[in-house]
């Protein structure tokens, strides 16, 4: 537990309430190595270890499987194939039954799990795995989406179209128009703790699985289906993950299912922890996109009409590709008003690993399309892209006619104008742009660039029913509180934020609230901790539980002391009852003696939201989160190498529950986003093999890649427009997209070699190679 100075009975404020900077609840354990991740838990006696055998072709039918050498290998206890799955051999989260636990008959991507070896040690399991002999009849593999047709080629799920006005007519009628295509790469999550599950068999049908998952309820349901048992037989528990970022939203199902199947077959605990390479090869990533766009605009730079097709490489199964590509469309506007718009998604089937959730969930890719068309307009007119951005923002609140999104939701909480104005001033954008121009005029090799980009991100699961949450709060007779909720802790500080909410509600010090591991046995049918919704939903549910108990305590105290309820007030660590103050713990003891229930299950569902996918209209988002960033870079035009010289961020998180935690989310999200758009490049070869499957080949940012000067500020004037938990706003995903300013600063630096007359049309990630090649292309086109 964190050490909080206990505030005693006379204090004016509790220690650790909302809107205070609290440390991560596990910070002390993190730094001492005492924080227990699943691989650190003591294993039950006789624990076995599983390893997955993966497909070595991208697409084919399995002609024969010879696992005799695997079975005979040292230490091997069992080998499991798809035929051995006792229930349904499926872990598809979309309900489309398109993703087996273990492939049978055919394989659809290189790295698809076909069998599992269970051995005494992990090393023996790994060694045995390599002895399998599997023959395939190879089939043509569809690896890339370039050239695919949304109308003709196979999709993994139904596409979406958003439409408002007549985009084609608007573009045709516009004085100017530009069309183009942009490639936006995928991203591996590279959570430092890879996937892991440990299943411990219980009596009857029961099994408990410790799973590194953002979605315990889904793992529970998938394990139950795979075992062919009711969900009540399966308990999933997770205290913490070593990072998730969306990579453990559905991808933990596989490991949970394999561990549970093996554990029930063998009656022994089974742990599965793929090594980094297998984790990267066999689990899904951020979708890469190919965005076709056309934009019509006038000579001032007003966007008049846009047409987008967002093609996504989804991989072999639907997984979350439907909602991911939907969210890309929901963000094809970023912060811009389109008078006429048509945007359609094309979630393509490919013979690659099934892509999945990743921080932003398609939103970042959607916004990249928006920012590209802004760039096109700016270059076509010879104007600063920032001018085009500001010109096309959604109207200020109340500015009717410029406040409706492509999905027909009215933007009611727009603060992008103020954020961008303030950031433009604090980052000294205008002066620096002039200085950069002067620098570039004199510098032959090194060129600088600057860009300021906004973010408007919709908050809520777009599947309305996911926007619910539960919590369980117990108050023990000593006045200490046990808190549990459906949200999972992956480092984002959710647990401490929700604990702050409960401490605030009861007016007790934070160290009186015990944060406990997320488990399906305490709070059922939870949604994934995703969509930035963790504190919004679980904070509300926990507050609801605490309020139920408080109400009972008020009733009890009013009854006992013969006072009206409004004479009962919760003060820091005490309760005022009429003219006397009773320590909180004392009141609890009295309530217990009077047989008052001191436990409550809390619940919350987000109000106001609705979404009609067939019509492409509704209010999918409860509110929007806003921010902006300004970045300056230097590029070396001999090698394409670059550096981020400075980034300034202004971001709003409403009335923050915990600014320290929010600041960490913003800084971390930004750098992670930078990685996505700069050095993180996923490379598959012609055989469909992922060639970047470990940190030696897949390059996430280092400390020396972060902006050399990094100024991050929270908009302290911000307050949630809607009655969210203590008027705070979600912070998990929105900052990720602030990194677009780095990408556009690189583009700006590249553009300088052609006097900003040609749009560099950089693809992402903008590796040094892409930067250099863009410089070469621009120089070629201008004859310089």
């Amino acid at each position, binding site marked *: 537990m964190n050490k909080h100075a206990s505030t005693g009975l006379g204090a004016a404020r509790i220690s650790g309430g909302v809107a205070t900077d609290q440390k991560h609840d596990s910070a002390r354990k993190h730094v001492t190595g005492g924080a227990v991740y699943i691989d650190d838990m003591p294993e039950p006696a006789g624990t076995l270890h599983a390893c997955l055998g993966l497909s070595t072709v991208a697409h084919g039918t399995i002609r024969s499987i010879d696992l005799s050498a695997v079975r005979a290998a040292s230490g091997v206890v069992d080998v499991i194939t798809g035929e051995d799955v006792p229930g349904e051999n499926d872990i598809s989260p979309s309900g489309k039954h398109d993703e087996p636990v273990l492939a049978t008959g055919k394989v659809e991507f290189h790295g698809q799990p076909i069998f599992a070896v269970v051995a005494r040690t992990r090393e023996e399991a790994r060694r045995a795995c390599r002895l399998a002999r599997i023959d395939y009849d190879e089939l043509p593999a569809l690896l890339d989406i370039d050239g695919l047709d949304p109308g003709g080629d196979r999709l993994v799920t139904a596409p979406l179209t958003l439409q408002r006005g007549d985009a084609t007519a608007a573009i045709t009628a516009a004085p100017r128009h530009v069309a183009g295509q942009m490639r936006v790469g995928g991203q591996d999550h590279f959570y430092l703790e890879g996937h892991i599950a440990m299943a411990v068999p219980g009596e009857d049908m029961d099994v408990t699985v410790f799973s590194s998952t953002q979605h315990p309820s889904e793992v529970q349901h998938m394990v139950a289906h795979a075992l062919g048992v009711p969900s009540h037989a399966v308990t999933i528990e997770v205290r913490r993950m070593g*990072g998730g970022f969306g990579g453990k939203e559905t991808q933990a199902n596989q490991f949970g299912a394999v561990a549970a199947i093996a554990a029930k077959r063998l009656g022994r605990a089974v742990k599965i922890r793929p090594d980094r390479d297998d984790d990267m090869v066999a689990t899904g990533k951020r979708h890469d996109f190919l965005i076709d766009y056309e934009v019509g605009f006038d000579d001032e730079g007003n966007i008049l009409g846009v047409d987008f097709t967002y093609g996504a490489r989804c991989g072999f199964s639907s997984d979350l590709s439907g909602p991911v590509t939907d969210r890309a469309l929901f963000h094809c506007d970023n912060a811009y008003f389109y008078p006429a718009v048509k945007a359609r998604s094309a979630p393509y089937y490919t013979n690659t690993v099934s892509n999945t959730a990743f921080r932003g969930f398609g939103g970042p890719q959607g916004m990249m399309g928006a920012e590209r068309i802004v760039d096109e307009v700016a270059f076509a007119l010879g104007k600063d892209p920032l001018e085009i951005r500001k010109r096309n923002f959604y109207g200020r609140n109340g500015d009717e006619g410029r406040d409706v999104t492509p999905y027909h939701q009215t933007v009611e909480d727009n603060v992008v104008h103020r954020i961008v104005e303030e950031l433009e001033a604090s980052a000294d954008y205008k002066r620096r742009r002039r200085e950069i121009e002067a620098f570039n005029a004199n510098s032959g090799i090194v060129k600088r660039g600057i860009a300021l980009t906004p973010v408007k991100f919709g908050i809520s699961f777009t599947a309305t029913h996911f926007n619910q949450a539960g919590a369980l709060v117990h108050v023990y007779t000593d006045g200490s509180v046990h808190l549990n909720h459906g949200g999972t802790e992956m480092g984002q500080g959710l647990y401490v934020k929700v604990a702050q909410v409960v401490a605030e509600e009861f007016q007790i010090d934070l160290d009186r609230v015990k944060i406990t591991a997320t488990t399906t046995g305490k709070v059922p049918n939870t949604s994934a901790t995703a969509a930035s919704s963790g504190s919004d939903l679980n904070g509300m549910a926990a507050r609801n539980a605490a309020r139920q108990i408080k109400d009972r305590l008020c009733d009890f105290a009013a009854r006992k002391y013969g006072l009206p309820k409004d004479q009962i007030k919760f003060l820091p660590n005490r309760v005022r009852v009429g003219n006397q103050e009773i320590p909180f713990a004392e009141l609890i003891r009295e309530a217990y003696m009077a047989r008052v229930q001191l436990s409550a299950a809390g619940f919350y569902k987000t109000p106001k939201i609705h979404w009609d996918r067939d019509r492409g209209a509704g209010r999918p988002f409860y509110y929007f989160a806003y921010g902006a960033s300004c970045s300056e870079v230097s590029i070396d035009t001999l090698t394409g190498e670059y550096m981020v010289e400075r980034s300034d961020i202004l971001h709003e998180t409403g009335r923050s529950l915990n600014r320290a935690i929010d600041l960490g989310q913003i800084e971390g999200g930004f750098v992670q986003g930078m990685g996505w758009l700069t050095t993180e490049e996923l490379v598959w070869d012609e055989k469909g093999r992922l060639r970047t499957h470990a940190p030696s080949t897949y390059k996430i940012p280092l400390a020396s890649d972060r902006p050399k000067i990094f100024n991050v500020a929270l908009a302290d004037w911000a307050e949630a427009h809607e009655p969210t938990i203590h008027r705070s706003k979600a912070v998990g995903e929105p900052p990720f997209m602030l990194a677009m300013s780095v990408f556009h600063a690189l583009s700006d630096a590249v553009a300088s070699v052609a006097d900003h007359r040609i749009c560099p049309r950089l693809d992402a990630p903008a590796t040094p190679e892409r930067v250099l090649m863009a410089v070469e292309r621009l120089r070629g086109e201008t004859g310089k």
Partner: protein
Amino acid sequence: MARRELRFLLNDEQVALSDIRPDETLLDYLRLTRSLRGTKEGCAEGDCGACTVLVGRLVDGELVYESVNACIRFLGSLDACHVVTVEHLKGSDDALHPVQQAMVDFHGSQCGFCTPGFVMSLYALWMRAPNPSDEAIEKALQGNLCRCTGYEAIMRAARAVSSYGDAGKDALATERSAVAARLAELRDGARVEIGTGKDRLIVPATIDDFAEVLEREPGATIVAGSTDVGLWVTKFMREISPAVFIGGIEELRSMSEKDGIITIGAGVSYSEAHRLLRARIPSLGPLIDRIGGEQVRNMGTIGGNIANGSPIGDTPPPLIVLGATLTLRKGAARRTIALEDFFIDYGKQDRAAGEFIEAVHVPVPDAGTHFSAYKVTKRRDEDITAALGAFSVSVGADGKVAFARIAYGGMAATPKRARAVEAALVGRPWEIATIEAAMEAYRTDFTPISDMRASAEYRMLAAKNLLKRFYLDTTGTTTPITVKRFEAV
């Protein structure tokens, strides 16, 4: 008489192991055998740093602690060393160590999985440099990946550590002489031999002992820093028995300079080589800083970088253009060859069975010679070379190129000279027109491949442009010719 057990200190405890495999990693030993689970596995290839621990060893009688990757460090390399894990930072009371307290107070952890590794890297830095510059912090953290924080909070913590405590009063400082004495005691001058049949490891006591062992066991796997061999085990599950661990042989770790020639023992680590080379051949300093992360540089050796024959090793191209030679030894017999001739083809080097590299000899370029080496990578630090160019050129009084030696890594199956390019330079004026003309010659010298690091086209273009950068570097232009994170001090 060979000793049949390996002995080292683990935190406060002396360990003696007589039943270990040659491929047993320190990380597995800590986590599985000792249940010391504060040290994490993130990648098992020395790239993420979640497994960072400190290893203390005696260097010329002085006890030196360095950060290393436990995931690719074999137990066999730890004889007479002091292994310090995150668990050792726990003081007698409940107080946190200054590094830990700073990390807590500045919100340096989010998911926490990488955190023990960061703590250990920062601990090593703090002992060495209690008030480090940002440049020093970033360098110390090149081998530690964090996916959550964006590093800013960790940087704040790193700058503040000394305000939480005095590095001179730290346990590892106050107990230094006592630990040094214990390690000296463990160093009994005996060869260590453990295991039989398929599972054998040998730790020779001296260089002569090593020569003898290798002559007897020509098929043995030589393990120095294990930054490459470690991956043979963790990634490819290759058998390495019998493994001969040479990291502790002092004669292989010596460096000296005589008559303008620096002699580097094959077992000298990148970090150790950096100290001398940076002073004598300054442009090698920044290059070595970009090899691996700090942990890898503390383990990996110059000899290993040469011996494994990789086309993307970072030291061969510059050493080739400097005219380095190798001493190879087999038993008592020694021979000397030009480094350039060592690399025959992909995976094939001029090293006989039972032979080993003893030392590399590097002539210091004379004052009139321009020398530089540049590495191009996707990510600036801790990345493997896409293309690396090394250049040594001298220009005569007539303004014409008198001597040119150029070599590249990443452009061919071996580190390779650019002879056609050299020929296009020699005898011509050292001016941009000559450079641009020489660029045509690259086609003769190189046909690079496309892979996950770079396309052939990019490799070729960047390689040519490095020649231009080198030229500009020699002419002292006033505008910058490359992006620099920190100005040279």
